[in-house]
């Protein structure tokens, strides 16, 4: 078990260095932050001086080596745009993104799984048909469109929810939470729903398909023959066995939620890491982009690891090392 985790951690480092390397390759083409720092009226001499001060005139290999050496010490440098420590900037934005992703994931699971189960058990009823049709819309509509539609209806026309921002936050150490105030909850509804809709429909369709699969298996038939109640069969046996693939997908999707909240964050001006990243891109703020991409790589790797470990919990067949087997 320990060896397994260690092996995964080593893989994680390799993944992150690779991501950083590719990112740095791309950075050669994202443009020049100096234009922004000095404004349009700077002279050539002023520009060249700042470029050499920032080390932007050095070769790609030197810049990358420098970055790695610093990154090993957990130091990502100063943001060119904001002059603040990159690590601090990301730590400041992390809570917003994580809270949004968690609320969205909870929504997706809490609504998606029951909907999926219902659609599988009551196949053919008009409600199931409705679920399926609506879910098709959810999968095919792009996130920004859903976001704008929600804003139009619930913020502009009905005025129920605010259209942007995070509302009041409560500081708890370095973590800032928007989930402690009513205002904060009001603000999180629209972005969380926007972010959740795709996941929700995906989970629903997945649960439905898996459930149908499981319901056809022999042990369900035997369970029925034993005279177990429908409830025990559906929820005790069938649902539990559909959860392995659902877990894999949900885990990966959670990583996706964190990494790709960028669009939702931009639409709702949600002050998370995605917004930070987008601004870094328009400014060619290389230290922020590099740190963000490494962090996202890390998150994916960690989530994968957690999912792998959860398999051991859910699926007894995977518990190697234990003697025997049934």
């Amino acid at each position, binding site marked *: 078990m320990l060896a397994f985790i260690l092996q995964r951690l080593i893989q994680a480092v390799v993944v992150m260095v690779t991501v950083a390397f590719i990112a740095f390759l791309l950075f050669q083409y994202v*443009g020049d932050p100096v234009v922004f720092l000095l404004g349009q009226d700077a*002279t050539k001499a*002023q520009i060249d001086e700042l470029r050499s001060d920032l080390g932007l005139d050095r070769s790609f290999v030197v810049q990358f080596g420098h970055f790695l050496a610093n990154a090993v010490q957990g130091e990502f440098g*100063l943001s060119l745009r904001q*002059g603040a*420590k990159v690590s601090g900037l990301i730590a400041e934005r992390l809570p917003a993104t994580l809270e949004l992703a968690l609320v969205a994931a909870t929504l997706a699971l809490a609504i998606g799984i029951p909907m999926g189960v219902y659609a599988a058990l009551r196949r053919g009823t008009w409600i199931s048909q409705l679920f399926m049709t609506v879910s098709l819309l959810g999968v095919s509509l792009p996130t920004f469109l859903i976001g704008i539609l929600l*804003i139009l209806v619930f913020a*502009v026309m009905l005025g129920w929810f605010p259209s942007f921002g995070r509302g009041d936050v409560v500081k708890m150490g370095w973590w800032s939470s928007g989930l402690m105030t009513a205002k904060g909850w009001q603000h999180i509804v629209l972005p969380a729903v926007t972010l959740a809709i795709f996941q929700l429909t995906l989970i629903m369709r997945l649960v439905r398909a898996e459930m149908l699969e499981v319901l056809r298996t022999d042990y369900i038939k035997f369970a029925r023959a034993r005279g177990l109640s429908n409830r025990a069969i559906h929820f005790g046996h069938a649902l539990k066995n559909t959860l392995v693939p659902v877990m894999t997908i949900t885990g990966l999707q959670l990583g996706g939620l964190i990494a790709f909240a960028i669009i939702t964050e*931009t639409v709702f001006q949600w002050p998370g890491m995605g917004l930070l990243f987008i601004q870094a891109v328009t*400014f060619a703020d290389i230290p922020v982009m590099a740190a963000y991409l490494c962090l996202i790589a890390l998150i994916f790797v960690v989530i994968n690891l957690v999912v792998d470990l959860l398999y051991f919990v859910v699926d007894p067949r995977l518990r190697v090392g234990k003697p025997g087997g049934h």
Partner: protein
Amino acid sequence: MNKLTPRHVLSGALMASLTLAGLLSASLVQAKPFKWASAGEISTWDIHSQNNALQNGIHAAVYESLVYYNSRTFKVEPMLATSWSLVTPSQMRMNLRKGVKFHDGSDFTADDAVYSLTRAMSKTSNFTPYVTGFDRIVKVDNHTIDIITKGPNPVLLRQMTELRMMSKAWAEKNNSVEPKDLKNVAQETFANRNAMGTGPFVLKQWVPDQKMVLAKNPNWWGQMEGNVTEIIYTPIRSEATRIAALLSGEVDLVLDPSPQDLPRLRSNGNLRVIDGVENRTIFLGMDQHREELPGSNIKGKNPLKDVRVRKALYQAIDINTINRVTMRGLSQPTGALVAPQVDGWTEGVHKRFPFSVDESKALLTQAGYPNGFEVDFACPNNRYINDEEICQAITAMWAKVGVRAKLRTLPLVTYFPMIQRYEASIYMLGWGVPTFDALYSLQSLTRTVGTGGDGNYNVGRYTNQRMDYIVDRIKTEIDFPVRNRLMTEGLQLSNDTVSHIPLHNQIIPWAMKKNIDVVHRADNRLDWRLIKVN
């Protein structure tokens, strides 16, 4: 000293709470918050870290300069300096306003002024463009300073409008003496997130990308014309969300509504849209240096070196169609390189060569290209209003006279370094004039490439001896009528030699609620002292 008895304490507390309640209710009656939004977020509160228009405008609410432009007339007017005079052509004496206090209550003195101007000149400052030509700053007495320049500098006062004053004692105490040094990884300067100026508003809170709160400074030296007690700024990146926030009443003003939303906003009874000509001219530049243009089918020579070809390209552009269709009326077509607010501009230089396909074709035939030619054409796609669309329209117009422009559009972070490497044959550029003086444009755009700002954006490498002479004269000419005449001559020369193809001045719309009263400034920034919430 009296001993405190419980009764004293009680009555004291009662008094205090009563006063507090009184204050609260008073502020409830008068509180006039003003909420506004635009796409960008400022990056820092350090006044010398970054030269960015939006940021400079916001900083001006908290940090004041010695002189500033009047928002209505755009004449330089006194701020923290009450008067000034030239002691010698290269020594400007400025008398500072007395009784001005920083937000922490300390006095504003000559030491602060000398310190702030010197800070702008320091190595890690990115405000060097505004201190070009400065030699040193000298304190004369507690409320007088001398600015020593390297030679006569006719735009000194205009440069001073962007040089703001920071408390010296505060900067020293908080380890912010120098603007942040990007190489120094270990340390973030205090001034990056905090502010200490003398301005009409005090920085109360700033959470980047979320909220910036500026509160009215009750001890401000000046007379506030507006009635705003609190300014709340939220950057909202997405255009649709920004407009939604205005429609739902969450913000009072949007500085940059998208052109396609304007008809809807104008027809909304609760909203108002005001337009102003921005002090920024959009034009095309052409490579007049390389012997052969890469990507062109003409080998061995550069057609753009021929003034007839440049004029043909000019006259092939139907600017009224661009104004009507592409810009939806939000442009002021011009034949000059500068906007009307700029010194040196005249009706004469504003006049365009007429649009005429026939004349254009005739010119091309005279120049030896009866069938036109192929040429590379580069445009930014996220810098100016409808930049990409304008270039597409022009490409189609040129096709009618046989010029086959190969258009490529780039985001600004890659576009600007590219044109500065002189890689574009024809390129689009917009040039704002913060000094409101044509020298700024002529020097950067038409002077032969040299040092110290000469031709720093002359990326087509146009060169003309007479132009160089004119620019060098106006750099130091302090007799203003003579200077203005020279600048007009320079602008006219640029037109006659078709150094560039001017297109239009941008018109900037601001959208706001009906009850908001603001003055539209040509530099696209709000004057915080004039905002009224009715």
